Each structure stands twice: as C-alpha cells, then as structure tokens.
C-alpha cells in the first residue's frame, strides 16, 4: 500500500510499504477513506519529538471501512463493512485509566511503556503514528491501518454524514472540546484561546456551545483570525497589538476568566528577544519546549481563573511563571485528549448542527501529495488551515 512516512527531520515521503496485518486478537484492519495532517504532526517532522525512526508511517486522524477483524473482536461491537472514525489514542478499555475514562493514559496499549515511563514518570497510551515513545504504531496517512483494541475505540458512523463532517472526531474536535470543557465555562465567562489553528478554532466553537459570553482568538496569521471572526469570535493579532493590554481592554480590566493554550511547544512570540532566547535554548537542548503561549495565558488570566492546556508539550520548559500561578489562585488543567470519552456526544452535536467541523478545511489533496500538504500547512502558505488527504 501507499503510506506517508517520516524520512528524517523536515522530510516526509509517500512510499510503498507492506499492507498491515492482524497482530493481536482484538485488531481490525481499516481501509482508509479520509485522513488528515495534524498540527502535532509538524512537531514530529520538525524534530521536537524524540524516538522517531526513518520509515515510521505518520498520521493519527483517520477513518474508513473495516475490512478485516481479529478473532477476539466482539461482533456486537464491530464487524467487517462498518464505517468507523478511529480515535488517535489506543485504549484497552480494561485498565484503571480506561475505567476512569482517561483513555490517553491507558496502561496497557503502549508496548514501549518503559521508555515513556522514564521520560514522563508514568507511561502513556499507545498513539497512532506518533513516535516509538508512544508505542511505535504505524499511522493512518496510508491506504490501510491496523487498529488495536478495535472493539473499544472506533466510533461507528451509521448516518449519511460525509467523511469531512465526522473525520475530525478522531482528534482535533474532541481535543478542542476538552480544552473548553476543562474550563468549567459559566455564562458570564470571557474565554481567550491562544492559537487559531484547527484545534484552537474548535476550542473556540466549543467554548461558545458551552455557553461562554465572549470568545477571543489570539494568533498572528490574518487569515486564521479572519476564519475565527467569521465564526463569531473576537480576533487579537499579537503582532499588531500588545496581547495583555488588548485582553484587559476586552474584559474591563479583569482579564479573561478562562484561557486555553492551543499552541504548545513550538510557539512564536511577538517579542523578538524572548523568542530568540527560547529558540536558542531549544536548539541546544537546554529546554525542549517553547512555552510563550502558556506563559502569556497564565499572566493574562484573571485571578482564580482556569488555564487549560491542549497544545502539545513533550519535555521540559523554562521560565514557568509559578509566582503568578500560585499567588493568583489559578487552576492549571491539561491532558492529551481522552477522545473516546467525547466521540459520541460530539457526533450528536454535529448531527444537530451545533458544530460544523468542515468550516476549517482549506485543502483537499491525494495521499501521494502529502509532502506538499505538510509544506503548505507548516509554512502557512495559500491560507492553509487544514489539509485532508484522500488515499
């Protein structure tokens, strides 16, 4: 089959690889009909996530048709011919974490849990196409994928919704939604979202459906801010204005009640010397993550507010504003999305028209043009917001 692979730093390559095979009894093989490039794929390609290997199949946002099931898959849960969206964390459904609906912390799905434990203190779940630290599972930017614990994760789509309407249930819609849910949004809340990429846009939409009074989008790309504005959110361009002053203006001096970091470890910064400081430290591995968005969110949030982090962090960061966090009674909440927890309720919101995930799609390319898709997305060319690939 054809598959998009990691070919070293800053390089992806679509090549011929063997078709996936059943390796565990509860596996299924899915013929992929739609797949997408995620912002977190850029962290892999940019070389910020360790334990990638040449030839790793990328991709963790995919859906398709079940073409083969292992002998241990419960036929009441999944059969050949089912149309499914596959959640990016692999979860067994049987461990303590899964019982607590903390699917991205599944204790059984990562064969390389020992490495993850050394880096993070405790292991994390297996993820599709996301380094060997998270299991070494081949990803979904391919014609077919092997899906372990197939009777736990995949969501069956039984209505006539299009691929594009449901594809993002695999990751970015639940991720954005969890970012907003962690904020415990009240009807009087102003919610500020750092990053108007795909996850940020969905965090904004989710904050609105959860009842926020006002939602603010912070980014530097005019086309991304315009996209947020068209969806009813208030844009703030951090290259044009001082973010803190603007946020005070927009909130009567209080600061946003709830702040969401939808940027993560490769943030850019309006202040050139601070950006250079972190770029340098990251380059020489004195810190692994550039946390501008997180720092600014903590400093901007009103006292007693919530800072919710859904942007990806991989290792260690520097100059964490612990004083502001502690002295102003802020709550910091975070997590890789527990996608399985949100798929069904969010499918309901899509069916009822409360959320329209298709609004962020700007590019549709054949799988063979994945490398061009990565270029467009990474360099924000041609107003690229979200690339969907067709195998």
């Amino acid at each position, binding site marked *: 089959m054809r598959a998009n692979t990691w070919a070293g730093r800053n390089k992806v390559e679509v090549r011929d690889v063997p078709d996936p095979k059943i*390796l565990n009894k509860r596996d299924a093989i899915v013929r992929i009909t739609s797949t997408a490039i995620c912002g977190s794929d850029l962290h892999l390609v940019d070389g910020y996530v360790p334990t990638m290997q040449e030839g790793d*199949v990328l991709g963790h946002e995919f859906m398709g048709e079940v073409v083969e099931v292992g002998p241990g898959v419960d036929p009441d849960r999944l059969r050949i011919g089912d149309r499914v969206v596959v959640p990016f964390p692999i979860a067994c459904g*049987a*461990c303590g974490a899964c019982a607590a609906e903390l699917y991205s912390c599944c204790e059984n*799905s990562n064969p390389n849990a*020992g490495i993850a434990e050394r880096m993070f203190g405790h292991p994390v779940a297996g993820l599709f196409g996301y380094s060997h630290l998270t299991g*070494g*599972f*081949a990803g979904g930017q391919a014609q077919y994928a092997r899906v*372990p614990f197939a009777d736990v994760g995949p969501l069956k789509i039984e209505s006539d919704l299009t691929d594009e309407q449901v594809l993002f249930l695999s990751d970015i819609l639940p991720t954005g939604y969890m970012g907003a849910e962690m904020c415990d949004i009240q009807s009087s809340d102003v919610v500020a979202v750092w990053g108007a990429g795909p996850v940020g846009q969905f965090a904004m939409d989710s904050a609105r459906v959860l009842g926020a009074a006002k939602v603010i989008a912070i980014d530097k790309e005019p086309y991304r801010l315009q996209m947020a504005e068209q969806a009813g959110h208030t844009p703030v361009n951090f290259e044009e204005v001082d973010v803190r002053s603007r946020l005070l203006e927009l909130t009567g001096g209080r600061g946003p009640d709830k702040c969401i970091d939808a940027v993560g470890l490769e943030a850019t910064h309006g202040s050139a010397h601070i950006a250079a400081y972190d770029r340098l430290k990251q380059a020489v591995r004195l810190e692994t993550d550039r946390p501008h968005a997180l720092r600014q969110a903590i400093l901007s949030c009103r006292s007693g507010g919530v800072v919710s982090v859904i942007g990806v962090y991989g290792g260690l960061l520097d100059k964490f504003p612990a004083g502001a966090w502690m002295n102003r009674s802020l709550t910091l909440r975070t997590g890789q999305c527990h996608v399985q927890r949100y798929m069904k309720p969010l499918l309901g919101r899509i069916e009822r028209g409360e959320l329209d995930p298709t609004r962020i799609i700007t590019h549709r390319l054949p799988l063979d043009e994945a490398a061009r898709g990565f270029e467009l997305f990474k360099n924000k060319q041609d107003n690229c917001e979200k690339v969907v690939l067709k195998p």
Partner: protein
Amino acid sequence: MELTATTTIRKPVPEVYAFWRHLENLPTFMAHLEEVRTTGDRTSHWVAGGPFGQNVEWDAEIVVETPDEKIVWRSIADADVPNTGTIRFMPAPDGVSTEVHVVLVYDIPGGVVGKAIAKYFGEEPHQQLDDDLRRLKQVVETGEVVRSDGAPWGKRARKEFPQRPAQPLSDSELVKGADE
C-alpha cells in the same frame, strides 16, 4: 541480586492469584522464561533463555502457599543460578483491583558465568522485571501482550532497540517471527 517490582491489576485477587499459581502461565509474560512445567503438587521444572543462546534449566518448589495472599518458591537441587521468589497479592484501595508485589533473589555465582549472567540482565536488571509485570497486567486485563509494528514480538520487545520502523511487517518478516 535482589529485584523488586509491583503493579496494580484491575481484577479481583482470586483471579490474579489463580493466574500466577498456574505456573505454566508465567512464560506468557516473563521475557526470560521459555517454559515452566508442573511436575508435582508443589514442584515444577523451569527453562529460561540464558546467555549465548543456551537454555538454563532448574527445578523449583513452592515453600509457602497462602491462597489469595502469598506464594514463595525456590530453586532446588543444584541449580546453576540458585533463586527464590516471593509474590504477594493485596486488594487495592479501589475495591476492585489487586496489588501485586514481587521479590526475586538470584544467587549469582562468581567468575565467567556470573559475569555473563550479569551482562545478560543488562545495566538495569529491575527494568526487565518491571516490563514482566507490565505484560502480566496486559495478559490478565486484556488477554494478551500488546504488539505494535515497531515492537511486534510481544515479550521479546526488550531485545529490539532500536526498533524496526512503525511500518507494517512484510509477509516474510511475519513468518520469520521473533526467532531471528
């Protein structure tokens, strides 16, 4: 050399105890064990993969057996590497899970053999037991050891770093299996 490790398994104590007490199950998750065969009420014959691809074999007996609480065993006769093991089972505070606490003691001989054994266990011998218990948890909770494209060979995964790429196996790789 004394190794300790612990894990929590989301199954009731009698089930986890019974799984372990059926000693034939141990090689499904313990990386170094090839086979354990029951030879009597309390005696068993153990076969482990050793240094230089040679198997090491010994007999063992259970010396303490308290159902749903504790099993203690030790090698008997003239084992090359005399060893004892203790496993305790305790209900976890959540009311549904079992805490498993394992202590293994190996009496490693001196000389060339001892060095080879130490090398076989690697720089972090406790890591092997941690991984064994992780796989015990996988087998009891989900039915088998989880495999990925990068680590396709279950309990032999530890020998595979750096791993093969996270890319599906070819038919010949699949047939060849973990033997190479």
